[in-house]
C-alpha cells in the first residue's frame, strides 16, 4: 500500500511501545470518503505493530456489507480490502449487535468475519483503549 503511505517515516523511535488503537467506523461508505480514508489509516497502522481493533457501529456497519458494486457510480469498490486485513494481522473486527439489527442486517451479510457484540461490550472495548480514532 505504498501509494497511500507515501513512505513510512519513523522519525522517532516508536519501537517497544505497544498501545491499543481502536478505529471507530460510524459512517456509511461512498456518501462521504470517511470509510475509505479510515481504512487507509488502518492499513498503515498494521506496519506499526500496535494492538489494533476496528469497531463498526451505527451506519458504519454498512461499510462491510457483501455485494457492493460501484462500477456505475464510477467509484472504487474498496470493500474487498476489509478481507485483506487478516493478511496484515488485523483480526479484531467488532460489530455492534443493535446497530446491525436496527438496520435489518445479519452476521452473514458481512464480507468479513466479525465478532458481534452488545452495546455494553462495545462500551467496554472503547474504555479499554489507549487511542481511539473515529472517522
Amino acid at each position, binding site marked *: 500500500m505504498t501509494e497511500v503511505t507515501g513512505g513510512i517515516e519513523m522519525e522517532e523511535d516508536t519501537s517497544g511501545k505497544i498501545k491499543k488503537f481502536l478505529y*471507530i467506523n460510524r459512517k456509511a461508505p461512498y456518501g462521504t470518503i470517511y470509510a475509505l480514508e479510515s481504512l487507509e489509516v488502518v492499513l498503515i497502522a498494521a506496519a506499526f505493530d500496535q494492538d489494533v481493533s476496528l469497531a463498526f457501529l451505527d451506519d458504519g456497519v454498512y461499510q462491510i456489507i457483501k455485494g457492493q458494486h460501484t462500477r456505475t457510480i464510477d467509484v472504487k469498490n474498496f470493500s474487498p480490502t476489509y478481507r485483506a486485513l487478516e493478511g496484515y494481522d488485523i483480526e479484531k473486527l467488532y460489530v455492534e449487535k443493535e446497530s446491525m439489527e436496527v438496520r435489518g442486517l445479519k452476521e452473514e451479510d458481512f464480507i468479513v468475519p466479525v465478532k458481534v457484540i452488545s452495546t455494553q461490550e462495545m462500551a*467496554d472495548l472503547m474504555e479499554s483503549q489507549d487511542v*481511539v480514532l473515529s472517522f
Partner: protein
Amino acid sequence: MLHTVNKSPTERNTLESCLKHLKKGCAVLLIEDGVYGALKGTVSTKLVEQALKHHPIYALYPDLEARGMQDRVIDGIKLVDYSGFVDLAVEYPSVQSWL
C-alpha cells in the same frame, strides 16, 4: 474516558449513540453544534438529564454563547472554556471524539 460530541441531537444520532456507550467514570463534553444537546426543553433533554445522574456532562461555553444558547442550559451541566477542555483531556486517560 472523555467523550466529545459535536453534532446537534436533532440532526444526528451522535449524542444518543455516545450516551449509550458511557462506562462508569466517563464524562461527556459537548462542543460545536453538540452544545444544542445541553439545552432545556428539547426532545433530548430527558436523555441528557438521565445521563447526568451517572456522568459529569460539560458544554463548551464559547460555542454556547456563539449560538445564543447560554441561558438555556440544563441544570447540572458544567460550562467550560478551552482551558477547561484541555483540563478534561488531561484528567481522563483517553479522548473519544464522536463525529
